[in-house]
């Protein structure tokens, strides 16, 4: 089924795009990550211009996270208070990201920086997840699997001003989730990702949030920050392809529901192992392009 994308200016196989959306939808339902880290590189690989890919992927992540947020809300798994603070930071970060995008584009290093960010972020997160998943699956003899005490990082405790976040069970400075939001907002704008793969570990291990609200709150943050990113892209780069986003959405909203169903049945360690493998595979692919053989030696930018 050929579909012509009016902003990307080319025709694509519609079913393939829906399937790609479905794949990332399953991921988002399973893990609470938006799946943008997979959509954007695959779209670029398919031949969609990078800016259009990043902008439309952000729009898609919005849709995927709506159904996720709804599902988690029914279970009371969203800390709206902490989420709102993080969203504020995220929108601020998206604007910083837009400025950085322009600056890097002007000096001609935007694609290198995006690739580097992918390698560093996904490489680090993937390795951590892999280690954890493996240690849970195969505990070493003589070592009882240690139950991690939920605590926030000492740096978080040193920030001034403290608020109570009841749902998350925290008494910390709102600056901590705000800064987290800023950081993820920048990444959303630059990489076309929701940032769930960073939010979830930061919420768990640095903020020390209670586990049952982590995924819901992360999706809540992603929902609003990707909305802001879509708007920033629509106003500045004009690269949001509504047809492309619609196709991706069709796949992802359906996929997300299946993902949620699977998440209820499957063993969490296995799921984490699978996610770690996917994340590492994307990071390695990017590293290959950066260190061994770039996809293209020459690139063209309009003046």
């Amino acid at each position, binding site marked *: 089924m*050929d*579909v*012509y994308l*009016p*902003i990307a*200016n*080319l*025709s694509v196989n519609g079913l393939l795009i829906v399937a790609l959306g479905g794949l990332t939808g399953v991921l988002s339902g399973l893990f609470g990550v938006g799946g943008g880290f997979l959509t954007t590189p695959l779209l670029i690989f398919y*031949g969609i211009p990078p800016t259009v890919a990043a902008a439309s992927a952000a*729009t*898609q992540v*919005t*849709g*995927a*996270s*709506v*159904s996720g947020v*709804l*599902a988690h809300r*029914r279970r009371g798994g969203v800390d709206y208070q902490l989420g709102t603070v993080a969203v504020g930071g995220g929108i601020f970060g998206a604007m910083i990201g837009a400025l950085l995008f322009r600056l890097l584009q002007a000096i*001609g*290093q935007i*694609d*290198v920086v995006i690739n*580097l960010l992918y390698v560093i972020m996904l490489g680090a997160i993937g390795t951590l997840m892999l280690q954890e998943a493996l240690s849970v699956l195969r505990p070493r003899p003589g070592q009882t699997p240690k139950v991690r005490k939920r605590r926030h990082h000492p740096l978080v405790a040193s920030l001034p001003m403290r608020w109570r976040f009841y749902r998350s069970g925290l008494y910390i400075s709102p600056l901590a989730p705000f800064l987290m939001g800023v950081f993820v907002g920048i990444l959303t704008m630059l990489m076309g990702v929701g940032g769930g793969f960073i939010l979830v570990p930061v919420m768990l291990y640095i903020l020390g949030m209670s586990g049952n609200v982590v995924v819901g709150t992360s999706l809540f943050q992603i929902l609003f920050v990707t*909305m802001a990113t*879509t*708007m920033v*892209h*629509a*106003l500045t780069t*004009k690269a*949001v392809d*509504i*047809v492309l*986003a*619609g196709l991706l*959405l*069709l796949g992802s*909203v*359906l996929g*997300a*529901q299946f993902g949620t169903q699977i998440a209820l049945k499957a063993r969490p360690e296995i799921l984490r192992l699978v996610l770690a493998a996917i994340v590492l595979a994307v990071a390695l692919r990017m590293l290959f*392009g*950066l*260190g061994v*053989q*770039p996809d*293209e*030696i*020459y*690139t*063209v*930018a*309009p*003046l």
Partner: protein
Amino acid sequence: MRAWFLVLAAFLLMGQRDAILVPAVSQDEVQVRQGFTGTELILYGAILDPRGQRGGAAYDIVVVLKGPTEPIRIREKERILGIWMNAESSDFRSAPSFFAVAASRPVDQIVDERTAAIYELGTQFIQLSPSGQIEPEKQARFAAGLVDLRRRQGRYKEDVSGVAISEQVLYQARIELPSNVVTGQYTAETFAISRGQVIASAIAEVEVRKVGFERFVEVFSQLYALWYGLAAVFLSVSMGWIAGRLFAYI
């Protein structure tokens, strides 16, 4: 029908001494709409000898189809500290967004290199108008990089058997436009070449434009960016919400 009319019209104009080339295009407008996967343009026509005889002089036909030009910057990646990053760059004022050459024989058998360069009868002869001071060697390297890139995207191409000539009078060239063509005015230049000399040339124009929903989306995104963005957000939120509600009851 139309071809015959043109041939007839050309005969009437045959007072001059030079050969006359009468070109026509299968469609003077390419409409990009939903489901557009590219199209095949047929550029055909007739060449008429002023002395009224045919088959006298064997000639070749070369058709050059050029899309709208745009100013571009080409960047070249280099390995710095083990990482491939953009190093040198070079600006060109008029890179055609599409460039196709179709000929009845390999161009180097038809004309010498100088003539080919003058009429841009090949992707290596595209006049890109470099801006600023640039050494010829570097310019050639960047131009070759651009041609290679766009050739693989299907936007620059050469087809040395893309023109069929019948009875030394009628010719027909087929050029495939891929789906990723840029919209705008395309010009098709047809050259009749005999014994290494261009004996006649003619220009035909083709307009590629988006129509219907595709045009609406493009214009809307440019002129009403705020509303376009809101529409995209609304679409994604409502699709997510509807799916969430539907599945909640299943």
